């Protein structure tokens, strides 16, 4: 223990690290404390043994903020992956940017409609995307400051600049459901299914749920598509960790926080689980609101805040199956290059919606929606020899099914996922050398994310923008002076965007310079 830190960041996930890097670059003395042994949180590359490494939870980048990459001078090697909409009849399609073709080559009949829809969605998403790298507009005190008015004015201006037709269309669809939006333009099938799956990945909603257009646009905020970091998703958090340490931040592992110390309504530091006291003038928590609140103690918050924190909705619906394979699976109808793409099992939007139904009643989807990727095909450094890793993001799986998780339940889910994939990869079962299933409950246990939810707090309209994660706490400051939320629960939200962390850090810097 040596002196007082300017800031302690709780959690070395991508947001905690991005916050730490931002603060350290501004000259602050920063310490990141992480309960686990390594950086990463939900964005980690792990060693599965048998000479295979792969992503543990998150596996792709959809919307990493270019501003964050630029500001923190991250050197990231990423490969853009095409999206492969798998079709039960074998007529798989390749979606790459606005282009849509059959995997076997040849014009896709929906190509023109898809291109138009994609282009429109990207335009809308870009408008939303500009909101991500700053705090949400403030409505407190009726736009009291010039800055608030400026923010709202720019927002309005951006909306106006879209042109009348686009503006109307944007306002018409923004709160509506992805299912209707997509099926207005495309027949239901694998293309519509892939878009619908993108709209609801990580959230507690089906594509017919209101707000699913927003989550689709959120994911397309940087132009849509997906990128694979070389070295696995952990390369991103490693780069962020380097950015933080290069700028002077310290990282401490195996350092779970037992409590945030508060005196006279001001943060004084943290006490670690081993009893170590660390003095700091600010604490940024990348945890969700409720666990963050628990660390400081309910007594330091208003009653309304504790009530809202308790009511923040975060029901995880995503399970993760990581498989080590003897060799690359064969997917009839796909070339080797296409097999390395982002494989989507969502034969139709209706399929995705049907998959959502059981989870409402605590059951696993009979026919799950899967986003699979075999990162080792793009990045051979992950595996020795012929080995490959297959990473599958699986929806919908309840946090805890009725009766709780049992070995039989886990085995049944694993089998169901493998069977679903095997419909497209006939030889898959024989190739499996090892597999690891992470249910939402496991993900919660590993990362502390409430409900094992990807975004720490549901990305629904009542928990977005000026009310993310909750009313009155939308601009990172979290009640006690010097305490901030810097994780996925804060604006703009989840996915590996890198945005909430630096936004929170800037809020702290702003307050310190004021």
């Amino acid at each position, binding site marked *: 223990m040596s002196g007082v830190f300017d800031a302690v960041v709780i959690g070395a996930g991508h947001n905690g690290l991005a916050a730490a890097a931002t603060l350290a670059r501004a000259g602050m003395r920063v310490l990141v404390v992480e309960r686990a042994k390594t950086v990463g949180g939900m964005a980690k590359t792990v060693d599965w043994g048998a000479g295979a490494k792969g992503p543990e939870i998150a596996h792709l980048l959809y919307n990493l903020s270019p501003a964050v990459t630029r500001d923190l001078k991250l050197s990231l090697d990423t490969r853009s992956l095409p999206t492969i909409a798998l079709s039960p009849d074998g007529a798989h399609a390749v979606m790459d940017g606005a282009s849509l073709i059959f995997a076997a080559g040849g014009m896709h009949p929906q190509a023109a409609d898809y291109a138009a829809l994609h282009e429109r969605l990207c335009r809308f998403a870009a408008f939303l995307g500009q909101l991500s790298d700053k705090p949400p507009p403030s409505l407190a005190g009726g736009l009291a400051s010039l800055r608030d008015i400026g923010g709202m004015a720019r927002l309005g201006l951006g909306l106006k600049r879209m042109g009348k037709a686009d503006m109307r269309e944007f306002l018409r669809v923004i709160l509506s459901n992805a299912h209707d939006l997509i099926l207005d333009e495309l027949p239901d099938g694998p293309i519509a299914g892939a878009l619908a799956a993108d709209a609801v990945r990580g959230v507690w909603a089906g594509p017919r749920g209101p707000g699913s257009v927003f989550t689709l646009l959120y994911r397309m905020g940087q132009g849509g598509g997906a990128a694979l970091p070389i070295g696995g998703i952990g390369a991103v958090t490693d780069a962020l960790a380097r950015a933080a340490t290069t700028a002077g931040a310290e990282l401490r592992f195996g350092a779970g926080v037992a409590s945030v110390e508060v005196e006279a309504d001001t943060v004084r530091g943290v006490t670690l689980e081993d009893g170590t006291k660390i003095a700091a003038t600010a604490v940024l928590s990348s945890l969700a609101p409720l666990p963050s609140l628990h660390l400081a103690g309910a*007594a330091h918050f*208003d*009653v309304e805040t504790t009530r809202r924190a308790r009511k923040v909705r975060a029901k995880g619906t995503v399970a993760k199956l990581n498989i080590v394979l003897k060799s690359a699976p064969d997917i009839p109808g796909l070339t080797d290059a296409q097999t390395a793409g982002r494989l989507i099992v969502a034969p139709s939007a209706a399929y995705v919606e049907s998959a959502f139904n059981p989870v409402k009643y605590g059951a696993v989807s009979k026919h799950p929606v899967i986003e699979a990727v075999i990162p080792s095909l793009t990045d051979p450094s992950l595996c020795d020899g012929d080995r490959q890793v297959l990473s599958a993001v699986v929806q919908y799986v309840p946090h805890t099914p009725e009766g709780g998780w049992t070995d039989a339940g886990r085995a049944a889910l694993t089998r169901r996922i493998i069977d679903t994939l095997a419909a497209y990869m006939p030889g898959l079962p024989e190739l499996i050398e090892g597999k690891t299933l992470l249910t939402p409950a496991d993900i919660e246990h590993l990362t502390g994310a409430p409900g094992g939810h990807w975004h720490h707090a549901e990305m629904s309209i009542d928990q977005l923008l000026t009310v993310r994660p909750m009313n009155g706490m939308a601009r990172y400051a979290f009640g006690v002076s010097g305490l901030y939320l810097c994780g996925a629960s804060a604006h703009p939200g989840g996915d590996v965007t890198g945005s909430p962390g630096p936004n929170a850090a800037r809020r702290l810097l702003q307050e310190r310079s004021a």
Partner: protein
Amino acid sequence: MNTHTVPIGLVPGPVHDRLEALSRAKSWMGWAGYISPAVLETAEFEYFAIRNQTTLFDISPMHKYRITGPGAEAMLNRMVIRDVTRIAPGRVGYVMWCDQDGMVIDDGTLFRLGDADFRLCCQELMYSWLLDAGWGFDVQIIDESHRVAGLSLQGPTSWSLLKEAGLDLGDMKPFDCRQVEPGLMISRTGFTGDLGYELWTGWDGAGALWDRLWAAGRNWGLRAIGYVALNIARIEAGFIAAGMEFQPVHAARRLHRGRTPIELGFGRMVHWDKGHFNGRRALLGQLGKGSRYSLVKVDIAGFKPAHGALIYHRKRREVGYVTSGVWSPTTKRNIALAELKAPYGTTRTDDLWVELYVNEEGRWDRRMLPLTIQDKPFFINPRARATPPGPF
């Protein structure tokens, strides 16, 4: 009687049969769902009994909540604006609590029955709020509203009356409370600004307690009273009432109807240094920015009660209104509590006028009457605080 029938309308309180027998005016009003007397005989008789004899008023419709457990002190300290740690067991504190914006939710009396045992008495329904406020603390919260009855015995001869009833409380100081007999707690509290006690017992024991006091009251001028007389006394004492001087913010449907303790004149009751309490951050902000309103005691010319009248500066600019106004029979003044918009009432206190309409035998006339702001309660009498009380 079919016990499954849900009563429609107001229901009788625990001593209603006694009140019914005494009621000549048949003037009833609703209070938290109970039939409560507005006037039993005449408001004047009843008022003068408060100031010259002793009166009995059923306060059982008040909401009562029991908060117990190791976290009770900390929980209440986070909820109310004053420092609960400074209220010793056996003492009662007047408390206010606010929402996150510093707006008063309600006020009431907090009885500290033990180290980890409190009873909160208040006007508004507060159970769900208390449950929210209790989250994160090791406490148990019980709604005792329908289990605990209360009788308010107020007036200069109340101590003597209690002695005659076999309850000698000569050593009891204002805001003391104690268990005097099994099932009977007495506190030296009240809403009249006079000598008085409140007696708390089980719902079913209220009738017997009433009879016991009634029997002892013969020589002490005991009179049962209704709300109208009590209201005159409480305005004389300068006490605020929920729904009158402030709108309990959870019940207010319109924006900006809430008022802060500072605006209600209780700034000095806020214990800023006790740690966080609900609304503290917002209230600190108001300290910096200044209050929007101030609640003041005013003396109005003439004798017509000015309840609800608008107040003007220089007879032109509307700056507030009278929240409660009565003719004060004891001080012989036309008194009121009034809310003024800042800066009136604080830095600008002159040239203020009350607008009244008077009916002179069928002819209405508008009058602008001067008002002057008072800094002390209208009725102050040392007998209210003397310990032991005098045997009047």
